[in-house]
């Protein structure tokens, strides 16, 4: 899987298979298991040729081993949007938490962001209203820290280091943005620095600070200066300790939403949502979080993109971390992305619902395995299955 877990600096050739890691996560769950128990359970699931467990430990930060040699899941520091953080406002301005179904969809996004493997996650719902944008919001918030932690910072550093010399960038210094030109990478005392020419000075930015640097998407009349305050204040409580300015100024394609273009556009721009900061609710739009590329303009930074059902996605924004097929029609006409997990939203009022469900059942009947993830809340009419397709 590319995306949130591919930037750990390990060559993909040496890495254990992502599906294997996902199975390991399922096996271990909340338990602590001895290496023998792990190996036995793997064998029970038909995995005979698993790599040495030591190799797995060396190449994945998802597991930890305690003093007694028992394995458990290493909790990742992903940002998780809380029920008490994102909600809506009543006409009188009082705070209303999101309903169960909406909270569940947020959690689908955040769980998907930390679930390894090329899985297929099918959600069937009475209505798809807001489903794609809520899942994308959960996913993007869960991965917002990417580039913010030292591990992610290294990944962002590598992306910047690969820029051609002479590329225009901006550096954030507190609230201020400064134009600069990328001039390569320098190593001093074993530490790597980005070399940036800003006006008359040369600035060296270390790995830990590189999140403040952003390539400018166009050299022509690029805007610098203060970023929209409204987005920042809305984002602050949602992103927890991730600095909104850094989040807003980096592009990385996390979610590709296929289908329902007009609805997704309207829902992402719907200013009905609000983030709760202390006792203050700040009204905002989910587009501030998911930052759909086709809505942010040439200069903007993105976290998602949106294409029509069946439309060919030209991957000039890079490979997405997850594809969300928004609707039965989008699922029926879906294009497959190698090694990219997918979430299918089948609205049971969608015209092609029966065809899509029949395709889902065919794929499910030929699955390689199931994934146990969070259960849908009762009384919401939501169904789901998560599995590994045999053909992928």
């Amino acid at each position, binding site marked *: 899987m590319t995306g949130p877990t591919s930037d750990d600096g390990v060559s993909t050739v040496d890495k254990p298979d992502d599906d294997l890691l996902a199975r390991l996560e399922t096996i271990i769950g909340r338990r602590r298991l001895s290496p023998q128990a792990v190996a036995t359970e793997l064998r029970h699931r038909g995995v005979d040729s698993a790599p040495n467990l030591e190799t797995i430990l060396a190449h994945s930060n998802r597991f930890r081993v305690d003093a007694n040699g028992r394995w458990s899941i290493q909790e990742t520091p992903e940002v998780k949007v809380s029920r008490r953080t994102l909600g*809506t*406002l*009543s006409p009188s301005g009082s705070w*209303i938490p999101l*309903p169960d*179904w*909406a909270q569940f969809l947020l959690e689908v996004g955040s769980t998907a962001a930390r679930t390894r493997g090329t899985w297929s996650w*099918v959600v*069937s*719902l*009475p*209505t798809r*209203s*807001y489903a794609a944008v809520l899942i994308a919001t959960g996913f993007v918030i869960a991965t917002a820290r990417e580039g913010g932690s030292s591990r992610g910072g290294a990944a962002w550093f590598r992306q910047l280091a690969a820029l051609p010399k002479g590329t225009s960038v901006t550096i954030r210094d507190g609230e201020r943005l400064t134009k600069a030109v990328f001039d390569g990478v320098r190593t001093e005392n074993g530490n790597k620095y980005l070399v940036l020419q800003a006006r008359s000075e040369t600035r060296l930015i270390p790995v830990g600070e590189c999140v403040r640097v952003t390539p400018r998407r166009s050299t022509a009349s690029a805007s610098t200066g203060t970023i929209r305050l409204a987005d920042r204040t809305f984002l602050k409580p949602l992103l927890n300790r991730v600095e909104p300015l850094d989040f807003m100024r980096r592009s990385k394609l996390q979610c590709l939403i296929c289908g329902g273009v007009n609805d997704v556009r309207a*829902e992402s721009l*719907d200013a*009905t949502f609000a983030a709760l900061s202390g006792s203050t609710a700040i009204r905002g739009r989910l587009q501030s979080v998911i930052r759909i590329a086709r809505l942010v303009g040439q200069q903007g930074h993105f976290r998602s993109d949106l294409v029509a059902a*069946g439309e*060919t996605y*030209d991957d000039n924004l890079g490979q997405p971390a997850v594809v969300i097929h928004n609707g039965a029609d989008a699922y029926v006409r879906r294009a497959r992305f190698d090694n990219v997990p997918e979430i299918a939203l089948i*609205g*049971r*009022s*969608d*015209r092609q*619902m*029966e065809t899509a*469900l029949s395709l*889902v*059942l065919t794929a*499910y009947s030929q699955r390689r395995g199931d994934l146990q993830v969070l*259960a*849908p809340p*009762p*009384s*919401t*009419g*939501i*169904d*789901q*299955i998560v599995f590994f397709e045999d053909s992928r």
Partner: protein
Amino acid sequence: MSSGLDLATATNRLSEVALFRRVEVANDSIASFVSALSNLERAVPKDDEFWDTVVRRLRRTRFDLFSTPVPFNDPSLGLVARLDSLESDLSTIDSGYPEQAPAARDTIFRLRVLAGQSENPMAEHVRRLVGEYEPLSIAVVTRSTRSARSAESHIVAALEDCPVALSLIQGLGESVPFLRDLLVCIGPFRWYSPALVEAPNAPINISLCYAQVRETDLPDYRLPRSTRPLRQLLIQAVQGASLDLIDPQEALPQVSWAWVDRPESGGRTEVEDEERLARPVLLAGGLAVLIDAEPAASLLTLELNTDGAARVLRRIPAEELVEGMFLVLRTEGGGDFVEEIADRLLGDNAARLREMQREWKRGLVRHIRSDGAAAVASELIRRGSERASAGNVRRWAGDELLRTELRSDFQAIMSLVGLGESVDEYWRAMGTLHSAHQRAGVLIRRMLLRAMTTTGAASDLASGRLDFTLEDQMGGQLSAVRVESLADMVVSVQKSRIGRLTVVDEA
């Protein structure tokens, strides 16, 4: 909370708590007719064209009786006219089909009895349900799109002294726009879109159904290992004599699509003879048409209220056409009306520009046929195209687009088809054609809207067809014709057949 989130929350909640009831309606005359028709179906030989047609027309009549909440003798049902026509067709059966004649005569007799009755059991039951549930709002959904105006007036009359907001929805009920307290489907749930059950718009949903149409449960759309309970259908059955039961699908009208294979005559140009994907559509008044089923194809539809007011012209993707919509077609002359008016606007230039259009499209089609769309797309990219893909290449070769959006794409195509040196000339020419098409579209829309305001359209609604004669200067007649049925299949036909109305033998 926003209305959008509110609505989604209510729909999610309703999908779990909504109640589904089947209320059976008993009527002796209906039972006699259904029984007689079943006897006839058993008696007639299989694969006999004569009897196939007779039975199909009788089944259509049975469906209209099952699905239309109007009195049996209501003129909108047209039972008398149908009977006269059937009796005429059956006048010689005593000599030709002596074994089947008694069953046929019995069926006709039972139908004639029905045609003389003023009972309206469905409307009476709707009234009873309103009395039982006392809803503030009710939606009545009818699968039949015929007799809609009459059906609404009879339901309104039945609920005259009930303080309830009524909306009548025709067709599959795919999109009931608002939440209601009570939703009543005329006929079994399986006649309608699964959305009515899976994303209900009312807490109480009732299938008001003649007892002869069997439905014992609701379809199960749960995913494997779902924790949702299976939806229950609460059945309020009719007690009494044994019934001739019919499955919901069998009770639907059987449409014959045989006309699709009928050979067509008439002169065509080489380009017009291109094969195109098309979907057969049955229209009101015994008409049928093939609509374009290629990607990006669109259709003009007219939205009507049953009183003929609040009419809106709307262009929709062809795949969104559903039963009950009014499709706007050229009913005098044929072919592409937009193209014809655009040509008139272009005057003497039209022939030259059309030839240029045909030339590059022909070249592109030739390459697609010999190498395949994907290979052509690769070649175009090699020649500088930015948006070439197999899908786009097919769209560019079709008629919907006169030129590409990006000049780089057009330039690559011109180079591929050997017109690279004339790219500027062709780009300008196709731009001129494109503008003429846009002006023609605006003109037609304006003329149509003007014609609509001056036409006494409402009186024609029952027939499912509204005709609009356009201004003399442009000439021609357009009609908005109600869609009665869409074929599940897509067929490959000559392009010149698309959009041409055909008369078919459908009762």
